[in-house]
């Protein structure tokens, strides 16, 4: 299959590769960029484990092709913490609230919630559940995840107010 050159910024670094048009963005990130924090739980757009940000929007990278992200700014779970390694407010909230167990779904949740709270810093309970319902977790029963979103929202609001 003829290959095409793609170039994108991933977590602030320029990545360039020659890829088959059918290579998914998820596989590009995992295999060409060695960023294996983006996980594949279904490869058909339901579980959300593969969620990354493309130009700021939460996107299921199993459904996107790498070539579609040509020229884009991509943020993966590896790019969520502060540059000095300090966890982001969302990551810290997941840790504090036992929002993860096996951790397989976690990158997708953290990225989705990060984008969600950026767009909706003061969500209602219902909006939180609605936002979370696009990601599947089989370990936690969602209990700690729901608490984590509320905690992170509070932290982020405080930081914004300060």
């Amino acid at each position: 299959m003829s290959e095409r050159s793609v170039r994108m910024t991933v977590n602030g670094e320029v990545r360039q590769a020659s890829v088959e048009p059918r290579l998914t963005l998820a596989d590009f990130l995992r295999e060409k960029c060695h960023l294996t924090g983006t996980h594949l739980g279904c490869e058909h757009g339901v579980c959300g484990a593969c969620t990354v940000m493309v130009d700021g929007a939460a996107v299921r990278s199993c459904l996107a092709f790498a070539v579609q992200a040509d020229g884009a700014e991509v943020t993966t779970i590896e790019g969520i913490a502060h540059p000095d390694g300090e966890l982001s407010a969302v990551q810290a909230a997941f840790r504090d609230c036992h929002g993860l167990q096996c951790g397989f779904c976690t990158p997708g949740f953290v990225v989705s919630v990060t984008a969600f709270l950026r767009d909706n810093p003061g969500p209602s309970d219902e909006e939180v559940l609605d936002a979370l319902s696009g990601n599947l977790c089989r370990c936690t029963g969602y209990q700690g995840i729901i608490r984590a979103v509320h905690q992170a929202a509070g932290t982020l609001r405080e930081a914004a107010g300060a």
Partner: protein
Amino acid sequence: MTAVEAATAGRYAGARVPRVEDARLLTGAGTYVDDISLPGMLHACFVRSPHARAAVKTVDVAAARALAGVHHVFVAADLNPDVREQWHTSIGPDGPETPRPPLADDEVRFAGDPVALVVADTRYIAEDAAELVEVDYEPLPAVVDYVSAGSSPTLVHASHGSNVIGEMAGLPASALQGVFDSAAHVVSETIYQQAYAAVPMEGRGLVVDYSRSTGDLTIYSATQSPHEVRLFCSRLLGMPEHRIRVVMRDTGGAFGQKIMVQRDEMVLMLAARKVAAPVKWVEDRRENLLAAGKSRHEHAAVKMAFDAEGAVQAVGIDFVSDCGAYPTPWPVGTSAVVGVLFPGPYRVPKASFAAKCVYTNTAGRSAYRGPWQFESLAREVLLDIAARQMGMDPLELRRRNLLRADELPYANANGMTYDRIAPLETFEQALQMLDPAAFRREQAEARTHGRYIGMGVSTYVEPSTPAFGYYATEAATIRVEPSGKVNVYMAGGSTGNSIETTVVQLAADALGVNIDDVATIQGDTALTGFGAGAAGSRSGSMSAGAIGEAAAVVRERIVAIAAHKLEAAPEDIELAGSRASVRGTPSIGLSLAEVAAMSYFDPLSLPPGVSAGLEASARYTTRAGIWVNATHACTCEVDVTTGAVKILRYIVSEDCGPMINPNVVEGQIAGGTVQGIGGVLFEELAYDQDGNPVATTFMDYLLPTAADVPIIEHGHIETPSGGPGGYKGVGEGGAIGSPPAVVNAVADALSPFGVTITRLPLGPAQVLDLIESAPGR
């Protein structure tokens, strides 16, 4: 207690200590099997049968082999002859196992049965090539309905001579006929549970890396038991166990499905020595739903006899389970547990049971969290039906029959002796949290507005921490390194059970060191002692036992060295905060680093009889399993026009013993509970009548989402077990207790219609059917 408060108190067990796993898992730095990348690694893809049953006439791999980038296409004849022995340690070499050809040879026995394995440069090419493999199938009639499978002339395994895998029984039902004939009230129903499955978010997978120069095989595996993978592989290939190394760093959920090596994994092991490069296979969701195994799918005729006051006189269960074509492992023993535990935590003087397992042309049965949970489902649903028939409050009926503390230990009618449980206490605690009287008022009020709300409870007792076979022992190595930092080596491995955190907490307490000074190394057979893995809700209590044994040896040595150096009596040395000091005079002491330095760098200065080095390997063996019990109580609303069920409140009161880490305990309970809720309301691993699977994506196999689950309210009762630290196993109970609580709540909500629920699942369509066909409609 926070970790800091705990440190001041000198004890981490009991505290909500943050998890050591989280730093890597939150930043995308975990290492799941699909994250393993080795130089030159190739990728594998299976060719799977589209038929439930068919004769395999020919397999033409020429076109697939010719595709650029394809290295191998293996069929049964290439790999199956290499099998030396295949048996799981829990069953033993002489168990009555199902014949398990790694790749299907002359016959495929379920849709998804692996027929060929393609190995190629990339997963994409392997998938392309798999499409090019031409299999000439001759479809054959399939055994799909398990209820009639036992008497079907069509056989799933002709060599077995019958579709009945095996049967086990206790007292025959006929022996209790007299009791049932003379009872004031008898209730009997046949209760069915649909097929559903573990469905971990990460599927199964492994990377095999065989070195032709050294003859060593390294396997990276998504597993609950790296040591069992190694043992199984050594038998399969006839390779010495110590030439195989199995590594698992992070496993993305398992819930029983990843305890045992299955056929797909056997194929990779067999292929390893034939491919001159490492090979990775990671199943996709479709494969997981097709071939990783199904669970539940069973029914039983159950009955109970009561006296005029509602005291249970006798119970009986006749249980049949669908085990698919290739159950892993032999399923009959577990099915007997359904019968043995059917009396539950109640005063039941007499019980009968029979259990039967049958083959069908569907995915094989595999273990899933609380594999015998049908006993609780059937018993608790039947109790509610009985209460309605007798015109009694279901709560009162339970209260009258639940075992009281003063009756323990209590031998159930099938010979199981329960002890150190608190069924009535968890029941009362859950009800106190629920406030049934207030709910009944709310319910009556709601009904006047045409709203149907209901409440349901369930109570169960389950065995954890099995004390038989290889489950009965666990090893730990504790090494205080020369700098005074501590490493704890255990079989373990993170599958979502927080076992790294647990081990670090327990070891810090056992040695009197600060938690930050302790790390743990797990999930690598080359580094850790043999252990059976995460199964049977055993990890917490067995880890406590093993750490206790190893720490005792290390402590004794630390104390001897410190006493000698400080010129104090060993009895007066206290270990706390990573220091050995003289009791009452904390300023006189040595840091653990100083003791370690003496031990490693100045061995000639050690007191007589104390050997150099600060490490010990030890093994704990348990002689008695640990009983755990809980009560689940929930309320729900049923929308009688759409059939949708919404859980309103959910309460779990579990007698979990003292908690090592309440976050972990509650996380396990919640996770299991939500899996059980999913099992009742959403999930079904369904097949059509020809044996075609109809749920092979997450569009058809519906998992509960955050929007579907209630906030779970936890009550804890802490009756210590007889095991190490008094701890109990809580990994499985949530999935046992929740299905009957939800069913009973739905039935209660719909009681004005007079519905009786005996079939799962309870999706909207089924709920509407129930209402449609209800007598009181």
